[in-house]
């Protein structure tokens, strides 16, 4: 095993650093315009803005990971750094975000099927708390959960199953087939892990539509932040093994250098197992700082906050991993992959720690317009993290990370199979 192509690429870290600073500034500007609660558009209510960012990230992954840029040519996309093409794909991703949020969720599924995906349908249904503000927050919460399940499956499928079982098919057939498969799995995952929570957001609870949260007894909370934290902790290992470990250890199960069913199942089980282990470790660490949480506690005492925070920490690490890969040539690139993977992972964890400290620092109070403190029920770093991640992936996937690097033909900035 040797690390991927990065070691053969001449790389200027100063250029990477400058580009990173520019991207950071772009994210900051986007935050001030769209999210900052005291900025211009104030979408960070918080759930409404959260849902828009989550859907945008999912849209970017639909274009790049699920459809491999279909109907555009995947090969051309990965080798080129055309600004025009990048702009087209960015606009397409934003259009998808609007279409999915307002078209699919608010005005199709929410209007003709599951009412809670549409603020308007919730308001029409009447009852306690069913007015426009809470209705939009609740619908947004449902969308966030659904989209998180989709993102999880999209990345896990890409890493594990790859192109299986459609290796010989055309790009379009592969894309649509993967999209349908991932969507079915997303619906099942959402139904089991998140739907019970959403059904409890109303008074009286919608207990004919969804069971009471089945995890409440042992998780110490009925909140689906338990599921969200677990999903994000697992997703962290999908991303780390994809970007930092060059797809190993799952690639040991390759057949002819391609993904397959066994590798897919192993990736799913392995990443979930690692996710559970890392979540337990993070919860133990939080116990040291804040003592053990208890049922009914709030802020840092709340079990649901601890689960969410495990997911939030995972989000910081994922962001750091993408940045390391995109702007710092996946440093370091040593002679053996295990050592390289170890150091990259350590760097990602340190980077995640730096983002953590930034988000909860006085600097972010000034830059992001936050209220100082931790565990505010109306604030989650996942929104800023997902926005940052979306911009980085757009830059890497749609713009070929221009100008920080110009990949050679066939090289992929992020694996796609």
């Amino acid at each position, binding site marked *: 095993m040797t690390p991927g192509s990065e070691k053969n690429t001449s790389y200027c870290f100063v250029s990477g650093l400058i580009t990173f600073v520019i991207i950071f500034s772009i994210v900051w500007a986007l935050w001030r315009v769209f999210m900052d609660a005291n900025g211009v558009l*104030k979408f960070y209510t918080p759930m409404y803005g959260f849902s828009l960012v989550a859907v945008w990230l999912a849209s970017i992954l639909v274009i790049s990971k699920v459809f491999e840029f279909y109907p555009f040519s995947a090969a051309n996309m990965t080798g080129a750094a055309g600004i025009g093409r990048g702009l087209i794909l960015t606009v397409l991703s934003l259009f998808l975000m609007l279409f999915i949020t307002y078209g699919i969720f608010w005005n199709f599924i929410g209007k003709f099927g599951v009412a809670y995906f549409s603020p308007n349908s919730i308001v029409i249904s009447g009852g306690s708390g069913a*007015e426009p*503000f809470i209705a939009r927050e609740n619908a947004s919460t449902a969308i966030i959960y659904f989209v998180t399940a989709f993102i999880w499956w999209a990345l896990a499928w890409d890493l594990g199953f790859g192109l299986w079982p459609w290796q010989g098919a055309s790009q379009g057939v592969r894309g649509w087939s993967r999209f349908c498969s991932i969507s079915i799995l997303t619906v099942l995952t959402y139904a089991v892990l998140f739907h019970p929570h959403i059904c409890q957001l109303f008074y009286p609870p919608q207990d004919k539509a969804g069971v009471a949260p089945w995890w409440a007894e042992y998780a110490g909370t009925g909140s689906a932040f338990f599921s969200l934290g677990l999903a994000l902790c697992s997703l962290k290992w999908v991303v780390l093994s994809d970007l930092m470990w060059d797809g190993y250890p799952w690639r040991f199960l390759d057949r002819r250098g391609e993904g397959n069913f066994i590798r897919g199942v192993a990736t799913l089980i392995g990443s979930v197992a690692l996710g559970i282990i890392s979540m337990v470790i993070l919860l133990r660490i939080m116990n040291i700082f804040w003592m053990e949480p208890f049922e009914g506690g709030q802020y840092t005492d709340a079990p649901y906050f601890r689960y969410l925070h495990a997911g939030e920490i995972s989000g910081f690490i994922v962001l750091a991993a993408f940045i390391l890969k995109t702007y710092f040539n996946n440093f370091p690139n040593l002679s053996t992959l295990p050592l390289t993977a170890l150091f990259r992972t350590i760097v990602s964890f340190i980077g995640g720690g730096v983002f953590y400290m930034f988000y909860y620092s006085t600097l972010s109070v000034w830059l992001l317009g936050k*209220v100082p403190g*931790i565990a505010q029920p109306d604030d989650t770093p996942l929104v800023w993290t997902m926005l940052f991640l979306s911009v980085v992936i757009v830059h890497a996937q749609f713009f070929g990370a221009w100008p920080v690097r110009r990949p050679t033909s066939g090289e992929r900035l992020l694996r796609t199979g």
Partner: protein
Amino acid sequence: MERRNFLKSLAAAGMAASVTGPTGLLSNEAHAAGKINIGEVKNVKVDVLTETSWFDNDIMKKNMMDYGGAMTSQYAIPWDPKNAGGYSALITVTALDGKERKILLDSGWSNDWMDYVFQEKSNVASMLKKGEIEFMVLSHWHLDHYWGIESTLKHKPDITMYAPATFYPEDMAMLKEKAHLKVKDKAGQDVLICKNDTPHTGKLIPCNQEGEDKTGIYKLMPGVALRMFDVPILLRVRGENVLYFNVKDKGIVTVTGCCHPGLLSLFSFARSNFDQYKPYGCYGGLHISLFEQWDPKFDDIIKGVKSFNIAKVGCNHCTGWIFAEKASAAGVPIVKGTDKFKTYSRYSSVNKGNNVFLTNGDSIIF
């Protein structure tokens, strides 16, 4: 998660260190100094002067939605003045020797409403003038607890005031500088959102989480302590003062404005920090289903309150009517109110008439 091992974990609490700096919920200083004896009182009476901070929940939420959301600064929203009420309570402490001492908790929002409450629905105005109210505790800097400060200061500008040290310049301008604060609405018109023409001239005691002598609390009188919980709160506010009373032969009672840190976190703090801790009761807004919405985490709170063995729960304001209903049905000892609120000129749109709130005009004795 071994959540049932909470008591065991308390033993290790002295070793715990907080990375949150001034924002951690639990006081390590108090642990270092050992448990605190705050003394005892004979009893505590709370008169609900007004708990109707706003009268129509939907208008309140629409104001928030139209100008941002839960994280937007309260000073950036042109609130509907006709919807403003306020939160305030009069606390009467009977010491062990039988002497009574009075504390004013919060000063509401609308000056019109608070003048009506202080002058017509109670004798608070008269008590302030005569100096019968010893000091005021501001629970936190939210509009519905603080923007009616003029209604207090016009009767007693030099009143001693305990307030969270986590104020913003607008808060202090209102308190000390005759500020008239305006904000533009969507039509570009200036809207006056709050004012105070009677600056505070008395002693202001900014409260922080370290407390007096790094004990984590402020001892206000024997058996009465104040703890400032430095937590981030919606509408860009930070920190809340909570009152603790140790009632002889009964136990610890908390009195809160909104209880943003969480009711059980308050009792958890008391359990970790107060000598001979015994839970007894609580009064105040409990900040749960404040907009009459629900969430599975509120079910957690109902289970938690029962496990903490709190014997007497007096709630109102931001507790959420549906929380009080569900908690009462689940066996939480919610103290019922009366129909006195009907003697007030206005009452809340969420009031369903089944008295699960201690509402305007009611009292509770611990």
